[in-house]
């Protein structure tokens, strides 16, 4: 099973540690602040009060045996750089670091960080995207380059079957589900909907007006669909 070490248990670090534990991964959580560590006890596999800039202590703790480290030091830019450097020197395969600024990110890359995250900015961008586009209901990031979007089916798709649309050939995206509102008549003669979800729809499925389609693909390709 994959093992994670989370260094820095502020809002971002603690929520990552919690989410990974909920997914049944082995998580070692580290922070200098005793209270923060106490809050994680019982949630993660191991929670330790420690100064993570102390390379020797990190080694003694066996951090080198972990697959992935997530470094989320809220205030101290220098500390996150030092820790990233030590972790890479110890041979950790993947080190993900929270950055505060572009300059911070650049330095982190230089010292070997495998992935830089700007959680606040990413959240804000995602929110801005969803506000700007009424067509997009949701976006789930799978990696830096791929994601899943839930989108109102473009007018061009309506009345066509999935095989006729050739989405994989033309746009390199796959339809993983269709959410459809199926109208029905009530005993008093009025109409109502019930929502039907077609998971893994076959090529024979026709897209109808009002369908919401859930697509998987590279972000660049998904953007092309959004613009239709």
């Amino acid at each position, binding site marked *: 099973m994959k093992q994670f070490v989370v260094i820095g248990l502020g809002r971002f670090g603690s929520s990552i540690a919690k989410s990974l534990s909920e997914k049944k991964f082995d998580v070692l959580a580290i922070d200098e602040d005793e209270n923060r560590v106490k809050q994680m006890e019982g949630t993660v596999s191991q929670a330790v009060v420690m100064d993570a800039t102390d390379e020797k202590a990190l080694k003694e703790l066996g951090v080198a045996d972990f697959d992935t480290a997530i470094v989320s030091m809220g205030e101290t830019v220098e500390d996150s750089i030092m820790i990233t450097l030590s972790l890479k020197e110890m041979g950790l395969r993947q080190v993900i670091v929270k950055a505060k600024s572009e300059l911070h990110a650049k330095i982190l890359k230089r010292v070997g960080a495998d992935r830089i995250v700007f959680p606040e900015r990413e959240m804000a961008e995602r929110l801005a995207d969803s506000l700007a586009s009424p*067509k997009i209901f949701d976006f789930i990031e799978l990696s830096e380059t791929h994601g899943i979007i839930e989108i109102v089916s473009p007018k061009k798709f309506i009345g066509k079957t999935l095989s006729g649309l050739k989405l994989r050939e033309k746009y390199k995206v796959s339809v993983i589900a269709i959410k459809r509102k199926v*109208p*029905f*008549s009530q005993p008093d*003669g*009025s*109409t109502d*909907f019930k929502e039907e979800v077609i998971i893994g729809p076959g090529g024979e499925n026709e897209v109808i*007006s*009002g369908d919401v389609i859930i697509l998987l693909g590279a972000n660049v390709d998904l953007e092309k669909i959004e613009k239709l």
Partner: protein
Amino acid sequence: MSDYEHLIELSNLYILSQEFDEALKSLKKAEKLNKLDPKLYYNMGIAYEGLNDNEHARNAFRLALKLDPTLASAREHLDRLIEE
């Protein structure tokens, strides 16, 4: 059946056949004949919701409830759309 009733019935049929744009056309014609029927705005809400135009759907359900605060189906749809 009056022209108004005919248009409402037509909108029901369009909604059932998932032709929401057509349903809205009938409902807008019907609105010119009678602006006091909660069922008209309920159907409008359903048609807009069918098109995923949730903002217009919410407005239509609100109008339906203004005309008939006991219209439970409009309340259910509005509550759900507000939650989203």
